[in-house]
């Protein structure tokens, strides 16, 4: 049996396996429950066992599910029937656990979907998640809150899996909020430190702003679907081989927010036949008179706000660097590998909607590029090892957003995966460095760790080379795939964006090379700093180094996915693999795709040429060498000599993160605080507390003390009053009758 047919024969048949998809989520959830409730009495080793095995079990199930998505019986791939009519979703597993809730004609099913996109992410989440659990057992060996930590970590994994597996926007939002909560709990894990608790709150509130956008966008999508189903006729749904009756039957059965239904609508919208097109005004409802395309753009921009909150993009990126207050493995798992990529996942999942709006796409791409550049510049001057990595994460996420925005979804997903590997490796390496150096995070006080921590050094070096984009490593190929797509895809009406972003991207690549080289050089090369906390660092234990090694190997190996290895196609492996998911948006063989039908994006599926490879590589090497030159040759020689004035100014600005936090403080937080203060004084303290609460009490007390003289204690007086009341009542009744 050759390799290909092995891949297409899952050990467990998909029909059997898809009944158990819920267990992928349930296992870590159970782990979280057990660790959280019984953790303290179970003891450290048992908590480690439970938490790690929950994620490991989830990983095994994910592997099986992932395998099953590629299963094919006699050449027919496993698929999920489309409840809305039209073509089934190929290469997918689906489990419907019934109605979650319904109100009127709105309903939400608890459906779990595993296709090639969510399957890939499942593997990343549970795989990297397991490695980080393993790493944490050693990293947190001296912490008393271990049971709390592992409960939160398992909860996070469960929520992230819900986010990825949800077959509708509402379930995705549950996971979206759940990971936000887990992130909040873990950032503020050492809550006795006020600054860390504040960082948790900052992350949570910033995310809430984005979630607000997400919610409004979901409401808009519900309205849009409602308008569509009212207005569309059979001719609209003809191209997707469905009818309006079947579509509304699907809505009744599955609710308006499933991705399958949205995809069916998206495929029907740009088509020229039928009553509904992108520029058709909506005929009734709250959105009456607005065009479908316009509403869609607004909804997508609001989704962008949500994604910007979760994925730390402009203007909501400020929480991520502060989130480094949490334990380092948490930074690796949540704030580098998985949760922060949720925004990218969201847009990949909804690629079929995104490609219909060039405006939204351009905004996503430009936001991504701007964030990426800004974060890279800030990372230049940060001295905290985790802060540098945090800004680097923001920057890399920006690159993924660029890819998503320019319609090169598969590359964004690939970069998401490779980034998860090398950034997790970098963070865990940083954690290992901190662990071996008495929790020192200032790179100026480290140095020379190369000989003292060989495993950490090797893996950190590989991951650094991967993120900078040195040729044989995965980061180079995934990043370059994005840049190539950005360069060659053209948004309709916004053609200038492509070229512009490409050059911005090159600058970002150079900056990335610069700050990563700086980080690496200052930490591992040169002499040990005289200000170091401990004289000699010690290498970490195997549960910490083993994940590092695995992640480093993966950082190298993942580059395979960017190569066109298939015999009958010149697509890159990942592009081919993800085409069942993205074919609705960008098309594939035998499927024109929405982008072409709507005429919004001119796609280019060519592979990068050697010339552009060389150019990207040259940029990166230049950036890295510059850093090496500056930090290894120039500065040590001039130690003690003050830098020129303008350099200090730039450095100080970058060090202070371009004063963005201060700007937000001035523009948003201060006015809000002032308004809150006024509201507190006028509404709360005066109106509610004084007038309403105390006023009521005062009036009641005064009235009571006046009325108590009526209480004579004379029974007959009370009876007399009752008699009078009786007289009055009878009189009234009789007068009514008379």
């Amino acid at each position, binding site marked *: 049996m050759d390799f290909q047919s092995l891949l297409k024969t899952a050990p467990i048949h998909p029909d059997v396996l898809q009944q158990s998809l819920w267990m992928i989520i349930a296992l870590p959830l159970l782990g979280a429950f057990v660790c959280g409730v019984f953790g303290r009495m179970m003891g450290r080793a048992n908590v480690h066992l439970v938490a790690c095995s929950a994620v490991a079990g989830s990983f095994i199930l994910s592997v099986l599910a992932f395998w099953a998505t590629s299963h094919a019986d006699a050449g027919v791939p496993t698929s999920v029937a489309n409840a809305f009519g039209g073509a089934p979703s190929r290469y997918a597993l689906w489990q419907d656990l019934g109605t979650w809730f319904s109100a009127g004609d709105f309903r939400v099913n608890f459906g779990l979907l595993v296709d090639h996109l969510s399957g890939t992410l499942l593997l990343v989440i549970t795989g990297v998640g397991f490695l980080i659990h393993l790493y944490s057992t050693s990293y947190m060996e001296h912490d008393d809150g271990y049971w709390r930590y592992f409960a939160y970590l398992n909860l996070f994994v469960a929520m992230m899996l819900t986010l990825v597996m949800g077959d509708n926007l509402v379930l995705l939002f549950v996971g979206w909020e759940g990971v936000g909560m887990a992130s909040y709990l873990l950032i503020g894990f050492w809550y006795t430190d006020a600054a860390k608790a504040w960082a948790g709150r900052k992350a949570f509130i910033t995310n809430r702003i984005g979630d607000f956008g997400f919610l409004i966008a979901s409401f808009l999508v519900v309205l849009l679907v409602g308008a569509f189903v009212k207005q569309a006729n059979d001719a609209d749904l003809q191209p997707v081989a469905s009818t309006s009756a079947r579509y509304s039957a699907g809505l009744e059965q599955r609710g308006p927010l499933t991705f399958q239904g949205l995809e069916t609508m998206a495929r029907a919208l740009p088509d020229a036949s039928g009553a509904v097109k992108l520029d058709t005004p909506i005929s009734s409802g709250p959105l009456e008179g607005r065009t479908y395309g316009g509403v869609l753009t607004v909804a997508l921009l609001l989704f962008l706000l949500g994604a910007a909150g979760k994925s730390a993009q402009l203007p909501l990126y400020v929480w991520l660097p502060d989130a480094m207050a949490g334990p380092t493995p948490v930074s690796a798992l949540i704030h580098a590998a998985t949760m922060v990529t949720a925004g990218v996942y969201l847009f990949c999942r909804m690629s079929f909607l995104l490609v219909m709006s060039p405006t939204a796409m351009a905004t996503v791409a430009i936001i991504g590029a701007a964030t990426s550049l800004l974060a890279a510049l800030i990372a230049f001057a940060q001295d905290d090892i985790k802060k540098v990595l945090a800004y680097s994460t923001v920057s890399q996420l920006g690159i993924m957003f660029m890819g998503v925005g320019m319609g090169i979804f598969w590359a964004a997903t690939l970069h998401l995966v490779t980034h998860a590997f090398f950034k997790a490796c970098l963070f865990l390496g940083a954690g290992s460095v901190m662990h071996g150096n008495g929790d020192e995070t200032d790179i100026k006080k480290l140095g020379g760790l190369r000989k003292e921590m060989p495993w950490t050094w090797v893996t950190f070096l590989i991951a650094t080379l991967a993120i900078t984009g040195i040729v044989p490593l995965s980061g180079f190929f995934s990043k370059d795939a994005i840049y190539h797509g950005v360069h060659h895809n053209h948004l309709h009406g916004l053609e200038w964006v492509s070229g512009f972003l490409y050059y911005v991207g090159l600058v970002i690549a150079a900056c990335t090379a610069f700050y990563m080289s700086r980080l690496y050089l200052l930490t591992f090369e040169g002499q040990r700093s005289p200000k170091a906390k401990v004289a000699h660092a010690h290498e970490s234990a195997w549960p910490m180094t083993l994940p590092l090694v695995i992640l480093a190997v993966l950082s190298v190996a993942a580059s395979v996915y960017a190569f066109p290895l298939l015999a009958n196609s010149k697509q890159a492996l990942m592009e081919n693999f993800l085409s069942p998911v993205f074919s609705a948006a960008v098309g594939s063989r035998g499927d024109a795709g929405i982008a072409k039908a709507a005429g919004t994006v001119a796609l280019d599926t060519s592979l990068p040429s050697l010339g552009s490879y060389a150019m990207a590589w040259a940029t990166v090497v230049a950036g890295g060498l510059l850093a090496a030159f500056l930090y290894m040759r120039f500065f040590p020689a001039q130690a003690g000599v003050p830098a020129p004035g303008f350099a200090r100014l730039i450095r100080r600005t970058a060090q202070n993160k371009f004063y963005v936090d201060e700007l937000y403080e001035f523009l948003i937080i201060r006015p809000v605080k002032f308004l809150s203060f006024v509201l507190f004084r006028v509404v709360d303290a005066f109106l509610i507390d004084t007038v309403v609460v105390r006023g009521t009490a005062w009036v009641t007390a005064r009235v009571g003390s006046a009325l108590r*003289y009526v*209480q*004579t*204690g*004379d029974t007959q007086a009370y009876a*007399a009053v009752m008699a009078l009341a009786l007289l009055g009542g009878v009189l009234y009744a009789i007068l009514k009758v008379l």
Partner: protein
Amino acid sequence: MVPISYYLFLAAALFCMGMFGVLVRRNALVVFMCVELMLNAANLTFLAFARMRGDSIGHVSAVFVIAVAAAEAAVGLAIVIAVFRSRGSVNIEDIKTMKH
């Protein structure tokens, strides 16, 4: 034949006399007796209407009222005894613990 309204007049008079007694007399026992008077007035009304309509539901109600009156008298008199034991008086003017 005596018109039913005569019976009703009698019942109203009896009820109001009972009420007058409840509101005016000071001896708790007499007050209870006046309550019995009022209950009897109610009974009379029931019976008068039963006669007027020619069905026996009014009679059933009267029987129930008598039973309730018996229960009320038993408990009420027990309370009177308890009050007398603690205060040495059944004058309701003396029982003013609930004064402001």
